[in-house]
């Protein structure tokens, strides 16, 4: 085999990047989060108002978000109130569906499971996938601690912070490096998801359980009451949806086939110039 002198190879080596544990839990979460989101919106629709505090104000106002419908001289309209600011959200929030036969629900049936109002089923689906989600997270933490994924790829180190401005600039100019390890921005994003967002959404979910509040009353104290916990649960959901959107955009920009292959087979094509190591494929 000969190579042209002085010219770098057109491709970097194929490296084994994702362990079976990372790949398996990744797809389990993808399925779980899909069902958790859509059944969660169904549950939210049963009382589409969020509050700050221990209880829901019916004779006082401690709401921060409220979705509903109002009657106007021009007929019913969907309305969303956020921090006292009211927006007309007809067609999306509060009132949606065909104009002749609209449904008056918080989130439209297209993004809830089931598509009709059914709190009982929303709860069945939510708790089933909640258990699987938590079990997968437990397995991932254990496996990633043992196989070094956590230390190598997730926990940010000093050089990740010093390298952050440069990495942000590279991302902004869409110069995406396919290296052996995650870039500083990647590490920080995954760190935020695994160490902030996932624990937060699980613990705020548990805070809504009157049984768990008896077992772990500190849940009520750290989140400032059951209704604040419910609001945080919703906000973290929004942040995870944003993460998902950015995640998909980055996969598409970075080369969807290579990225998908690494999350299915584990093998990942690195950028040209990446030094080979033992165990790589050419």
């Amino acid at each position, binding site marked *: 085999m000969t190579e042209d002198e002085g010219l770098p190879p057109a491709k970097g080596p194929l490296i084994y990047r994702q362990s079976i544990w990372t790949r398996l839990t990744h797809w389990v979460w993808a399925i779980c989060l899909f069902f958790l989101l*859509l059944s969660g919106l169904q*549950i*939210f629709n*049963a*009382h589409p*108002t969020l*509050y700050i505090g*221990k*209880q*829901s*104000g*019916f*004779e*006082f106002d401690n709401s921060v978000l409220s979705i509903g419908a109002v009657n106007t001289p021009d007929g019913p309209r969907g309305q969303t109130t956020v921090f006292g600011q009211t927006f007309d959200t007809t067609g999306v929030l509060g009132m949606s569906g065909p104009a002749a036969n609209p449904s008056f629900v918080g989130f439209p*049936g*297209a*993004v*809830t*499971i*089931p*598509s*009709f109002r*059914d*709190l*009982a*089923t929303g*709860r*069945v*689906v939510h*708790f*089933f996938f*909640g*258990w699987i989600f938590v079990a997968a997270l437990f397995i991932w933490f254990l496996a990633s601690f043992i196989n070094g994924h956590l230390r190598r790829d997730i926990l940010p180190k000093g050089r990740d912070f010093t390298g952050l401005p440069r990495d942000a600039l590279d991302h902004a100019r869409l110069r995406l490096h396919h290296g052996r390890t995650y870039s500083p921005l990647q590490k920080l994003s995954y760190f935020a998801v695994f160490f902030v967002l996932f624990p937060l959404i699980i613990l705020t979910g*548990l805070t*809504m*359980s*009157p*049984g*768990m*509040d*008896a*077992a772990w*009353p500190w849940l*009520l104290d750290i989140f400032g009451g*059951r*209704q604040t916990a*419910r609001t945080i649960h919703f906000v973290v959901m929004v942040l995870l949806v944003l993460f998902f959107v950015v995640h998909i955009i980055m996969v*598409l920009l970075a*080369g*969807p*086939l290579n990225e998908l292959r690494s999350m299915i087979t584990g093998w990942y094509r690195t950028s040209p110039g990446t030094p080979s190591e033992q165990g790589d494929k050419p």
Partner: protein
Amino acid sequence: MSRLIVNRRKFLVGSVALGSSLAMSGCSQFDFLGQRGNPVRQALEQANVLTYRAQRALIGDQVLAREYAESEIRQGQRPNGSTDPTTAEYLFLKQANFEPYRLTIKGMVDREISFSLAELRNMPARTQITRHDCVEGWSCIAKWTGTPLGPVLDQAGVKPAARYCVYHCYDNIQRGLSGDILYYTSSDLVDAYHPQTILSYGLNDAVLPVSNGAPVRLRIERALGYKQPKYLHTIELVDDLSPFGGGKGGYWEDNGYDWYGGI
């Protein structure tokens, strides 16, 4: 042999088409999960059994739900579900100011007993300011006064084989042409004997009003609102829930809600 070549452009077009068709069709492909008795739904429902077992293992039987300060009572207790029952029995009791009311303990007990409202009020009372959590998602803090259920059950003498309490109520939660459906629910004996489980006859320092379950409402403070039966008249000790209503242990449970109701 021709090779299927997927380049970036084809991949993008394909994923956009797939994604939008999924979004357009909405989530009605999962509507079958709403069918009670569907085998997939029944499999998913097993997670609720796991939740019940996990919480029973994790939470000590005597561990109390949080109690709040007087200053946290900022509003009246929000009524929900039945707020004004219309069964003949209840209307008669209501116009008689609940004088003829009796709470009966029956089923797997050594002796069936019943108490008038005055007798219940003369028993040792417990007052607790607790948070009522509705399955819909809202919460309301109120002060409940009543007599603990445990000692009342002991007076009847619960047989060792009894596993559940079934709570029978006066209210016709569902009114239809084929007749009324009366509210009922049930709990295990852990919840029945919990120190905060009281037969409440007082709310926020006043007599329990009709809209909140007069004359007697059971409080099970570590569970959701549908496990706090209003207009309670009979507690039946049983070892099997299937003979009652739809067989799932309660009105809402028969309608697909989980029996434990602790989350």
